[in-house]
Structures are given as structure tokens and as C-alpha cells.
């Protein structure tokens, strides 16, 4: 078992995966991509839908860009990313509307804003244009998972305090007084700053 773990450290896919989830966690370390999601991450359901959306769009567009990376002229690469990413976002939006109409209703315009999520663009520019399809997909998956993890943890705290429930299942009894502030913007800001603080101390990553 121990031998297996040590050997794992020399595998490229394992390193790529670990970097995305922990060492380069997009929210905690680089503070990217919270634009489109902090506002709707006040319920666990929304956070899961948004996390899946971002992960899927990042994986698909990274894979596609890695596939055609030798055909993209470097002057127009940004526009190429934009077109690829928007196409996959539209596809995801249609899926969401068809599968879970009420979550799609609640997320509203925020699903479309996955396009401008810096993570998707960042992975395309930093990794997918230089690496083969296999590693690009793993890298995108890792970044998406790191993001989803933080989003779900945040929404757990926010939904519990603002509604007394998790996934619409009442946890704190009848007498719980809702902390409405956690359902709106200020609560989101405070929780994310506590998260960044905690994870940075844990990962020993500081900026001076």
C-alpha cells in the first residue's frame, strides 16, 4: 500500500489531480472564478448544480481546446476559447432547463455567467493549449472539483444558518430563528473569507 502511494507521486496524472484540488485550489489559492457562483451558493442544491456545470464546461472545453491546440493561431486564441466555452455553456444550460427546471429557474442568468468564470478560461490558457487531451481533461476535472468542494462546503454552512435545513431537509428544530444575512451577499463574503483564511493556514500558503 505504502509502495503504491509513493509510486503514485511520480505519476503525472496524480500530480495534476492533486495540484488542482489542493495545492492550486482555484478559490483558495488563486481566488478565481467566484464571480458567477457566490450569489447562488446559498443553498446546497444550487451549489451542486453550479459545481457540476463549471466542472463539465471546464472539462469539455479544455479537452476540445487541447484537441485542436495545434490548429489555433496564437493571435486569435482568446476568441477561439470564447466560442468553444460559450458553446458548451449553452449546451449545459439546455440540459439543466430540461432536467431540473426549478433549479434552472433559481440560477437564472448565473448559468450563462459560467462563460466568464475565470477558471474555465484560465485552465484553457494555462494548461490546455500546451498539453495533450488526457492531461488537460484531468487538470480541468481537478480544478472543477476543487471549486465544487469549496462551493458545497460554503453552501452547507449558509443554508444551515439561513434556513435551518440542508438539501431542504429541516435540521435545526422548529424554534430556530433564521439568520437571513447568510442567504444574501454579506454572509457569502464573510464565509468565503473565513474559508480562505482557514485553508491557507492549513496549506501553509501565505501572501505577504
Amino acid at each position, binding site marked *: 500500500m505504502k509502495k503504491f502511494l509513493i509510486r503514485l507521486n511520480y505519476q503525472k496524472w496524480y500530480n495534476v489531480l492533486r495540484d488542482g484540488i489542493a495545492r492550486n485550489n482555484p478559490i483558495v489559492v488563486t481566488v478565481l472564478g467566484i464571480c458567477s457562483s457566490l450569489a447562488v451558493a446559498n443553498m446546497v442544491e444550487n451549489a451542486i448544480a453550479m459545481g457540476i456545470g463549471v466542472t463539465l464546461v471546464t472539462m469539455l472545453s479544455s479537452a476540445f481546446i487541447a484537441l485542436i491546440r495545434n490548429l489555433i493561431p496564437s493571435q486569435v486564441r482568446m476568441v477561439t476559447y470564447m466560442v468553444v466555452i460559450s*458553446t458548451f455553456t449553452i449546451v449545459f*444550460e439546455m440540459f439543466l432547463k430540461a432536467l431540473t427546471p426549478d433549479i434552472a429557474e433559481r440560477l437564472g442568468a448565473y448559468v450563462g455567467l459560467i462563460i466568464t468564470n475565470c477558471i474555465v478560461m484560465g485552465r484553457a490558457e494555462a494548461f490546455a493549449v500546451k498539453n495533450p487531451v488526457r492531461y488537460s481533461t484531468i487538470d480541468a476535472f481537478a480544478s472543477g472539483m476543487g471549486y465544487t468542494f469549496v462551493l458545497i462546503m460554503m453552501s452547507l454552512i449558509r443554508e444551515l444558518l439561513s434556513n435551518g435545513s440542508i438539501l431542504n431537509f429541516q435540521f435545526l428544530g422548529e424554534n430556530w430563528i433564521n439568520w437571513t444575512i447568510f442567504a444574501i451577499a454579506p454572509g457569502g*463574503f464573510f464565509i468565503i473569507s473565513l474559508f480562505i483564511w482557514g485553508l491557507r493556514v492549513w496549506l501553509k500558503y501565505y501572501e505577504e
Partner: protein
Amino acid sequence: MVSITVLFEIFIASLLPFNIALASILGMCPLIAISTNVTNAKGMGLAVVLVTTLTAAINWPIYEFLKWSGTDTLDLLVFMITIAASVQFLELAMQKFLPSLYTAFGIYLPLITVNCIVLAVSLFFVNYDYGFLETVVFALGSSLGWAFAIVLLSGIREKLSVIADLPRGLKGKAIAFVLLGILALAFIGFSGIARVDPIQ
């Protein structure tokens, strides 16, 4: 024809109580990254106001055309291309006619293409069924609100970096979120100011 009062109300509502940065939490990446000093924040804010209002005004007729031709599922793709193209065009035009302003804006202009709020304003007017004038006023109000937020935040951060003795893990970006939270709390105080709710 919309009356002046409605337009004014949309403007005030999108500027203060429904501030796009502090109530809808949009445009965070540049808000955090560029708010370390006031001069840069002002430049970025101005560029955002310009681009957001311009692209919303361009996107409105284009969306009407898409609705007319029945291809409005493609709105995201078309909006994105419009935004990228108009930012590029604005950059070229400025370089030619207003070189001093161009050097002042520097790298902020190309960065705006990926600023969430430019696309968000275009998506919101689709959701709320705004007319042309309402769209322009809404875009102006939202982007001015964003500029207001980034200037406020950068002022506080600049002072704080000199006088505060923070825990190591809170330094830099984490403390910016605490400040944003306090600012957002303060902006809730404006919530009675507007009768209409632009963000239903």
C-alpha cells in the same frame, strides 16, 4: 415610451441597493485583483463604465434581431462575440484617436472582456424584458455602482495595508472579502431607497 421617473428609479436602484458588486456578487476577479491602490481602481472603474454601457446598447438591437429570427438560444455566444469585438474595436479606435487615454487605460481594456459584469448586464436585460432606454440606464447604473465599489474597497485596502497588523493567513485577498462583507452590510441600508426592484 418610458417616463423619466422610471428611468431614474432604475438608475438609483441599480447604483445603490442592488449594486452589482455588493448585492449580486459579480465582477469579483478584477474587483479583488485590481483594488490594491486607488489610481488603478479608478482607471479600471472608468473603463468598465465605458465598455458595459456601450456593449449593452449594442447587444439590445442584436437580441431583438435574434428574437425576430427565432435563434435566441444562441444569445450567449452572440453576446460574447459582440463584447470581444467591441472591446477590440474600442482599443484600436482609442489607440488612433485618443493615445493619451489609451496609455492611461493600459492593460485594463483587454481584461474587461472576461469581466463578469459586462456579460451579466446583457443577460439581465434579457431576463427583465427591458426596452432600449431602460437597458442603457440600467447598464450605466450597474457599471457606475461597480466602479463605486472598487474605489471604496481600494481606498480601505490602501489604508489598511499601512496601519493594520493582520494574522498571516488573512493578508491580501482574504481580508478584502471581509471588507466587502462589511461594505455589503452597509449597502443593505439603502434598500428602502428605490421603489422598483430591477433584480426581481
